[in-house]
């Protein structure tokens, strides 16, 4: 159960990262960007997509495995 709670938390975190990536790509989020006038902050968006993918991988590791 503990593993599943952690897995769910990591999936939620992944969703948050995807949202942040979208906001950076659309130029809505401007936190610590080199050029605030740029239309897209692609590098930041890619970073958050990678973090989202890493969170999903971690969630898959954390979930309780059922034995066949």
């Amino acid at each position, binding site marked *: 159960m503990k593993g599943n709670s952690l897995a769910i938390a990591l999936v939620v975190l992944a969703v948050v990262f995807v949202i942040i990536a979208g906001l950076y790509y659309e130029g809505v989020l401007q936190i610590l960007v080199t050029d605030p006038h740029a239309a897209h902050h692609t*590098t930041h968006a890619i*970073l958050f997509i*990678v973090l989202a993918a*890493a969170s999903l*991988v971690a969630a*898959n*590791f954390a979930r309780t495995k059922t034995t066949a």
Partner: protein
Amino acid sequence: MGLLQGATELFPVSSLGHAVLIPSLLHWSFKQSDPSFVPFLTLLHLGTAGALLVIYREDWIVIIRGFFSAAFRGQIRTEPERLAMLLLVGTLPTATVGVYLEHQIKVLFATPKIAASFLVVNGGLMLGAEFLRRRSERRAAGSGTTRREQEEKFGAAEHISFRAAALVGACQSLALIPGISRSGITIGGGLLAGLRHVEAARFSFLLATPVILAAGIVEVPQLFSPGVPLGEYMAGAVLAAIAAYLSARFLLRYFRSGRLDPYGLYCIVAGIVSLALLTLRA
């Protein structure tokens, strides 16, 4: 510049530190504020990453395969799968710090005097890592053993702990400061985590590849800006790749029994001499 970048990127002597110091000491006309400087550096990085990919092509095939198998299964079963996950854990801190702070760090620290000072710090860190390592070697193997025997008491990159991989990755972020060497600090970190010298170098180079490659790929569109002399820059990239390939081959052979000491001493001497020259010239 291509040869310099390719060689110093992998030698534990700080490529960024040399890129800041040498043009200033030799009065080269490279200006880092020049719009074509970033595309040039991008191509040099891609050349270095290409050389590392060629050297570790077989490792990368099994690492990528291992990554997907472990990620979908949710379980690590083989050593390549473990190495793939260690590299992921080690890469995330650098990627995050790099994206958020690279520009600010460069603005703050990319001056010749600061680069020279950090080169001295870099040398001290490497000598410190070797000092601690010698203590571990004495504990593990006792005295009177050969270097090869001492090295055999330590582990391979696949056996490093996840916490240590994250710490080594975090150390790699310090290399954004001109004067701090990426390979020096990650090899030093690997030694403290209990890796053999050659395995610490291998882990360092594997850890560097995605970061260098990503930094290069992200800047690729800038290569097609008007006024960028692509042919000349490509020649620089090829030279960087050749220098990086030869450097990596040399270092992997050297670290079978060699230590970081000579590079640490070089950084301290080079840093002090550069500081003296820059101060006298001012």
